[in-house]
């Protein structure tokens, strides 16, 4: 177990190092001055430090060393367009994205996995075919179109839900953690209850758009895993011993199927994040995806560099975490290659 943990720890750090290196190298590939792309400032504006000196002398390897240090210190440079500190900006944006991703994933897991079990147990019957066809339809939706349709129908036509943003401007909630529900909960706003309801109403549309596609994938993945487990010999052996079905289900089917589902979820993380980023731009959710896409419209290379580093670090971290967990739960899996 320690070996597995150590290997994944190692892998994460190597990957992180590659990503940091990549973000440094990208500053040279982006149009414009590398120093400007790295810090958001020109050489003259930079405060005098060893880092500035290394940049000025073009000793890039030394500069890279100081770059890593500055990343660890939290001085990530400033945006070339707005001049805002990137570390402060990302620490307000990232929680919003994580929040949306988390809620969508929870909804998708809560709907997709039980339905997947249901379909797997009833496989090759009418319910199974119905749900498989529905999930096929669901997974074919282009995410941006789905999100637009929901906004057009639910917000504009029916007027049930707000169409964009995260919270009505009426409520001035102080920034505490960046997670809106938590922030409202700890704030002492006089209309806390109403603010909470408003935040939830804003959350429904983006969460549903992302969860819609993820549910379909989770459903199919779980169903496949259950069907595969049902074909195993130990299920037949348990049945011949006369063990009641619910016991077989709890002891053998559920455990083994969930083990097979876990590594497949790791593959879905990057798709999920792409979908969240697209939905953020459509619903104007103030997350890192919306911000990154704005940054590319405005050619804000300093922001793109750091945004790319942060998003990919989070995604790689979550992916490796899920893979590591599934390896810890089930050490018989094929060795990480």
């Amino acid at each position, binding site marked *: 177990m320690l070996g597995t943990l150590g290997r994944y720890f190692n892998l994460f750090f190597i990957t992180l190092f590659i990503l940091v290196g990549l973000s440094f190298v990208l500053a040279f590939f982006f149009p414009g001055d590398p120093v400007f792309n790295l810090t958001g400032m020109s050489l003259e504006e930079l405060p005098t430090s060893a880092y500035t000196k290394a940049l000025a002398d073009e000793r890039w390897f030394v500069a890279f060393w100081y770059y890593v240090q500055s990343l660890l210190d939290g001085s990530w440079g400033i945006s070339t367009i707005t001049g805002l500190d990137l570390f402060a900006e990302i620490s307000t944006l990232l929680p919003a994205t994580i929040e949306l991703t988390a809620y969508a994933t929870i909804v998708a897991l809560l709907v997709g996995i039980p339905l997947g079990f249901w379909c797997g147990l009833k496989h090759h019957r009418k319910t199974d075919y119905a749900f498989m066809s529905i999930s096929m339809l669901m997974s074919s939706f*282009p995410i941006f179109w789905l999100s637009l349709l929901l906004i057009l129908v639910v917000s504009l036509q029916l007027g049930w839900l707000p169409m964009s943003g995260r919270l009505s401007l009426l409520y001035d909630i102080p920034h505490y953690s960046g997670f809106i529900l938590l922030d409202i909960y700890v704030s002492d706003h006089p209309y806390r209850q109403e603010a909470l309801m408003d935040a939830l109403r804003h959350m429904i549309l983006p969460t549903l758009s992302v969860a819609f596609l993820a549910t379909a994938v989770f459903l199919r993945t779980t169903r496949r895993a259950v069907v595969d487990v049902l074909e195993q010999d130990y299920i037949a052996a348990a049945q011949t011993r006369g063990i009641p079905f619910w016991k077989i289900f709890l002891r053998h089917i559920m455990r083994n199927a969930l083990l097979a589902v876990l590594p497949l979820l790791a593959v879905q993380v990057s798709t999920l994040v792409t979908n969240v*980023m697209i939905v953020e*731009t459509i619903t104007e959710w103030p997350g890192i995806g919306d911000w990154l*896409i704005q940054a590319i419209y405005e050619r804000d290379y300093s922001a793109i560099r750091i945004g*790319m580093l942060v998003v990919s670090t989070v995604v790689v971290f979550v992916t490796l975490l899920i893979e590591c967990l599934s390896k810890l739960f089930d050490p018989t899996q094929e060795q990480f290659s």
Partner: protein
Amino acid sequence: MANKLYNDEQYPSPWGATWREFKQSHIALTGFIILNVFILLGILGPLMTPYEPYAQNFQSILLSPSWENNGTIAHVLGTDAVGRDMLSRILYGIQVTFGASVLLVLGAMVIGVTLGTLAGMNKGVRSSVLNHILDVLMAIPTLLIAIIIVAILGVGLSNAMLAIGLALIPRFVHATRDVVRTEMNKNYIATARLDGASHWHIFYFNILPNLIEHIIVQATLALSIAILDISALGFLNLGAQTLLPELGVMVREGLSTAYIAPWNVLFPGMCIFLLVLSVNIVGDSLRSAIRNRLTH
């Protein structure tokens, strides 16, 4: 079926057997037909459009589809905010979106299968380094890769294709490597090797026939991802540019008039949806047809 086996005039080839399983399902056949219609439209579409896709007609701006009261039969699916015919633009859009997706999947497939075969047939450091890099590349969201490529090279359909192709290569490498590795451990490869077959010979005559249907299944998966991503990048203004009739771009353009002319958002999106759906149905049915063939 089993008792007829010895009386059969001829045994079906693996492909024949797969087709036999495939056509059992009505849904699979429907999807297959729809996909073929899309392929035909993609190739022949520009020959049958009633209007030029760029032709603006200020006499007929934002016309409704023909089945509504104020629509005309001259513009079957209505017109957009500058009077361009929706049907013509969609027919061209299928060619652009679908064609670009097919091309990029083919490119990613060739590179991915080559790398995957190298990784599967060579053991040791080389394949391990390759695997690490690929796993990292696979974990990074496509949109992020696209943003980086667009930041370096600028916007455009070909840059979007490059970005999505890069993101798809690892899938092919993974699939190929796994199949090649399991096949390499089997006895018939050892036999071929004892007979003195070269690496190339083993790959071409022994592994490739077993590999090809896995690759095709993988390619259908990749194709649906490619269509979704190309149109998403077009929609976000990071891929194809405004003048090109790409389906995602058309959705974005329709957005400005979405409230008075919802069909400008509805039809291009519906077209992407049907395209992806037919690819998904064919891919999924192909996978279960192959699985059934192998278990029977």
